[in-house]
């Protein structure tokens, strides 16, 4: 098993105001699998993604990636883990505002021992002609594509996407989803995508539904469709 999530629990706050966000999550994912984590706000899906990404720690339980337990890693090793294995895509892009588009992608490439060709990625993402622009000169969709480029260029084993289309319109959302789908197919990364858009589940290999910190459904999508065929 490439990713094994076992008994993850996580709560926030103290005493009476404490909220248990994750109440024991068990999940296994294959390498190259496209997994969609669905759920309403407060279901714990982003918290779970952050724990998988090594930027938050569980109260109990563990995660192993390719046989390595993240709980055993100190801060330095967690940094190396993120550096070597993960690509992150957020709802709000989080680009470095003073770097141009190409440089933002290069910031990702720098971290990899075996990065993809930056110009090729820019071409794939349709950003080559905008490569010298600053992020704030681009539309939301173009900025999200840049964030995808930055995540993908280091050819990560795992691509974590936290509501990547949450701030985009319908058409742009579909374009972005198509890009992620293409990247998953072309490079074989394991994709874990958090969304509350129910329609997106149809393009996933695996669908995990969360509610109140627990997995309510976990199934393999037998009727997977292309991102461009999604509708909502």
């Amino acid at each position, binding site marked *: 098993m490439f990713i094994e999530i076992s008994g993850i629990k996580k709560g926030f706050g103290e005493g009476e105001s404490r909220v248990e966000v994750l109440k024991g999550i068990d999940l296994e994912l294959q390498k190259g699998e496209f997994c969609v984590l669905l759920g309403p706000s407060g279901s714990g899906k*982003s918290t779970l993604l*952050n724990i998988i*990404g090594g*930027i*938050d720690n569980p109260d109990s339980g563990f995660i192993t990636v390719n046989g390595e337990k993240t709980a055993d890693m100190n801060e*330095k090793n967690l*940094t*190396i*883990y*993120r*550096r*070597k294995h*993960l690509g*992150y895509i*957020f709802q*709000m*892009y*989080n680009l*470095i*505002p*003073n*770097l*141009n588009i*190409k*440089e933002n992608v*290069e*910031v*990702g*490439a*720098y*971290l990899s021992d075996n990065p993809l060709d930056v110009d090729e990625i820019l071409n794939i993402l349709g950003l080559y002609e905008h490569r*010298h*622009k*600053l992020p*704030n*000169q681009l539309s939301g969709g173009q900025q999200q594509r840049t964030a995808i480029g*930055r995540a993908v260029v280091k050819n990560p084993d795992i691509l974590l996407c*936290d509501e990547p289309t949450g701030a985009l319109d319908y058409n742009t959302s579909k374009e972005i989803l198509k890009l992620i789908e293409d990247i998953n197919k072309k490079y074989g990364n394991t994709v874990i995508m958090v969304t509350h858009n129910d329609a997106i589940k149809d393009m996933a290999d695996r669908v995990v539904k969360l509610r109140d910190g627990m997995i309510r459904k976990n199934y393999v999508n037998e009727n997977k469709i292309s991102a461009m065929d999604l509708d909502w």
Partner: protein
Amino acid sequence: MKNPLTKRLPKELKSELGKYIVLFVFITGMIALVSGYLVAGKSMMNAYNESFDKYNIEDGNFESFQQLNSEVLKTLEEEQVEIYENFYIEENVKNNDSTLRLFSERKEVNKVCIMDGNLPENPQQIAIDRVYAKNNEISVGDTLTVGEKDFEVTGFVALSDYSTLYQNPSDMMFDAIKFGVAVLTDEGFDSFTDSNMHYSYSWTYNTPPADDIEAKTMSEDFLEVLSQNTMLTNYLPAYTNQAIQMAGNDMDGDTQMMAVLLYMMMAIIAFIFAITTSNTIMKESAVIGTLRASGYTKAELIRHYMTMPMIITLLSAVAGNILGYTALKEFAINMYYNSFSLTTYKTLWNGEAFVMTSVVPLIMMFIINFLILAKKMKLSPLKFIRRDLSTRKKKKAFKLNTKINILTRFRLRVIFQNIPNYITIIVGIVFANLILLFGCGLEPLIDHYSKEITSNMISDYQYILKAPLETENPDAEKFYANSLKVTEKSEEGVNVYGIVPDSRYIDLDLTSEGIYISNAYAEKYGINEGDTVKLRGSYDETEYSFEVDGIYYYPSTIAVFMSDSIFCETFDIDAENFAGYFSSTEITDIEKMYIATEITEEDLTKTSRQMKNSFDGMGGLLSAFGIIIFMLIIYMLSKIIIEKNAQSVSMTKILGYSDREINSLYITTTSIVVIASLILTMPLVSIFIDKVMDIALSGYSGYLPFYVPFSVYVKMVALGVVSYAVIAFMQMRRIKKVPLDIALKNVE
């Protein structure tokens, strides 16, 4: 209902405590220092100005070769002046090998201010100058051996015409260590022999001159009459008398310098406030946008965001003024009392200082913050919510060569993104380095000057005789001397030497009609070989013109060298009327009473000695002040740079960048700017100080060459680097503390 936003202020203070403490300390320290100096300056200046009337300070003094008879005095007093005897004797003090100028009781002119103890009451008692006593660790009740007599010290005094202890009017610097003044009873004074008596007379005008220009005209007229009636050996109108004028000029200069210092500092602080305010708006943009969208007016928000900077400035002004009127005033007063023999003073309220240190900074802060906030508040609420605060059209990023490593390009982008911060850092470094150069360079400069003077003395002994007497000493070499004045720019005296052929002491080819001038003269007045210099007589209007054949390395004195024959011809002096001797050994076969002046190494180093005494401890204090300014500015601005980039720092952490790599992106850029500024601005700082010194010392006699050894620059850079390392370490910790979830919470 009270604006609920005010409840945020304590929280804002708590969350940004470090920033506000730094700003508070910075502004308070500055205001305290300036306020202290201004209050002390005004109080002392007031006492100094009042002393002219209170102690009836002379309008000038002259010294006659012999005592004037009543007929001459009557003739002189017909010139609408009052003449007073102010005879003195100079004697060696055995206790500390110094010179005391002894006066009898002063009842009418240049009266005495008792600072401690009492005036002498019997011939065996003496009251000495307070500064001289302090420098030589003499206490009331001690016994001093003056000449061959013992005196009991009954008190410390300030002589109103010796607020600065200049022994000779031509001295570059006063000497309150090896020279002092003292008062004896009339009987005590008469117990000394007449042979050493200086027949000095003070005069006051019946109608005092309105200003220095009138004083000059009046003194020139009086000089004409004087020189017709007596043989003058010295003539010194009060307006040119450094012993009377210098303390006032110095305090006046300090007040102006402090004002400039304050405004420079306030400009830097204002810049820091401008940057911090912009940064606060950026950080709070979502809140501002939401509040604006909820109906809060621009004015309400401007008021809210201006409150903290204004409170901090106000508190700093209050604390700064309290410190200024107490500890710092005492500090400044002590500095003046350490150097000058000033009379007693009363602390005065200084309205001008209050305006400069409190009203002006508050207005400055108000305007800067208001302008920035008002400009930003013009943006729509939506723009604030979207964190899109650029008021200008979106600019394209300039291209950087893609062959440059991405981390290097990243650093370059950080530098370009933070140009206002870095400009402020550079200005702050220049400013701090100016202070630091003063602090670190003062002592080596004085030491170098002292060394230069002693290693370039004409001879170990130089004697000016009252009459041309022969000596058997084989090392002695005659010379001729006259004292002229520089006609241009200043009234400064020039020593003119007539040198015998093939001199053993002056290695110059003085065969032509031209002259050589000392390098001190050449450098101070910008005279080159081939130029013509014009000089005039000290006591008459005769003008002399000489062509400069060359420059002679003689750094201690403004001097002119010519052949003895040209000298005698120019000044119409007989060959046998030489002025004195240069000698490598002491001349013992001429009686002391015939020696007018004996110049030894000690006399030539009095300037450096006094400067060292006056600036004692100042070097360390200035260095510390420079370092503190340096650290505060860099701390504030590098903190802002990191805060501004917290989002990016968080994101790079999420991407997998290590702390070292992130430090190299955000700290290395500041390090490059700081270290490059430290090194590259050094020549600028050096040139600036050189010019400031030229201007500051132009009013002084003599010449102090600007000299800073390379080691001082190395020390300054090293101090800068070490201080910066402390700040960098603090900022590294700040970067380490930037949480990963900042990027996750981002709502653009």
